């Protein structure tokens, strides 16, 4: 009886193949198709999200780098500006100093010239005064009336000689 165990029923082999292949088709349509489709969709979505996240991260990193470089650039620029301002200030200071020195010198010259001028005028005035006074004194002294023009000529000459000697 048990020898039947090892003698395959040919009809059942055909039944098995047919039933199994039909089951493959049915399960493909009603189970594996929708299931695998859902799985692949989800995987694609996850892949897309991961790619998006990676892209966003690299973008953020790029922006950070750019900001850092821009900051470094700004720092350099600021340093340059400060140095330039310092130089300009220095130049301005020296120019103002030079101007002031020039002005002072000019003022000094002017004052000196003025003083010379004043001195000259005062000396000339003084000379006139002194000549008149001397004349008056000499007149009184000699008690003799002399022609005023002659008197003056003699005195002028006297004072001119005096001036030359002095110089």
């Amino acid at each position, binding site marked *: 009886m048990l020898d039947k165990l090892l003698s*395959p029923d040919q009809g*059942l082999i*055909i039944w098995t193949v047919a*039933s199994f292949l039909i*089951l493959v088709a049915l399960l*493909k349509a009603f189970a*594996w198709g929708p*299931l*695998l489709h859902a799985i692949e969709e989800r995987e694609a979505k996850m892949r897309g999200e991961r790619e998006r996240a990676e892209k966003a991260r690299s973008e953020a990193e790029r922006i950070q780098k750019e900001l850092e470089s821009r900051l470094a650039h700004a720092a350099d620029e600021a340093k340059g500006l400060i140095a330039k301002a310092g130089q300009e200030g220095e130049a301005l200071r020296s120019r103002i100093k030079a101007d002031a020195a020039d002005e002072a010198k000019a003022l000094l010259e002017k004052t000196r010239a003025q003083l010379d001028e004043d001195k000259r005028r005062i000396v000339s005035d003084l000379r006139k005064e002194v000549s008149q006074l001397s004349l008056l004194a000499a007149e009184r002294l000699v008690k003799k009336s002399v022609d005023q023009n002659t008197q003056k000529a003699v005195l002028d000459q006297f004072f001119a000689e005096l001036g030359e000697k002095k110089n």
Partner: protein
Amino acid sequence: MNIEQVLGHHLLDHSFGTLFTLGPIQMNLTKHLLMMWLVSAFSLASLGFAARGQGQAALVLRTGLEALVLYLRDNVVEPLLGHEGHKYLHYFLTLFFFILFCNLAGMLPLDAIPGNPGVSGTATGNVAVTAGLALSTLGLIVFGGVKAQGLLGFLKHFMPIPAGLSPFIALPLGVLLFGIEILGLAVKIFALTIRLFANMIAGHIVILGFFALIFIIGRSGVLLTGPFALFMVTFVNCLELLVAFLQAFIFTLLTAVFVGGVMHHH
């Protein structure tokens, strides 16, 4: 009661009659065929519900199913068949779940349901059923091989002659190798058939053997036979549960190995 009769009743197929004949072949409606159809209907209903159903129960089932499906896809089909294997994924998934459900259905005591006309037993414990599944694998090997490499490339696959040989050596060597390769393929298919069949039937035989111990030894008055047999039967049942999963996986894995082998050049 004759133990051979008991074994025969539990292990052998039983025909309810001939549906039609294909030439000399009788297409019988048998116990195991009905079990297969029952399992197919159950697979279709449960897997379809798990894949497309709404609600909490379907979600739980779908989560579990996805874990198995992803395991088979990422650890069996993809490494062995490459990305092209995704086209055959539904075949491997069906193969795994069909064998698994047949194996598990054979462990259900359907006989005990009142009014059951005798629809029970392990379909995968029938050598005709495992032969049918192995022949389907053979069909997939040929189909996948021809589709991936062309008919000529597929046939060349059976004649792995090193290049640069003189034709006087290459021709006889090719014929010899072709014979060996064809024989190898036949052995693979035969081994698939016998492996699943023997694994499924062995557990049943061992369980029936332990039950028989009760009647054989118990008759002589040894009282501990019953508890011992019960313990051993429970143990073997647990083992069978493991084997049910293991053999379904091994059949699927080997099918993938064989199909992957012909789809790529070595």
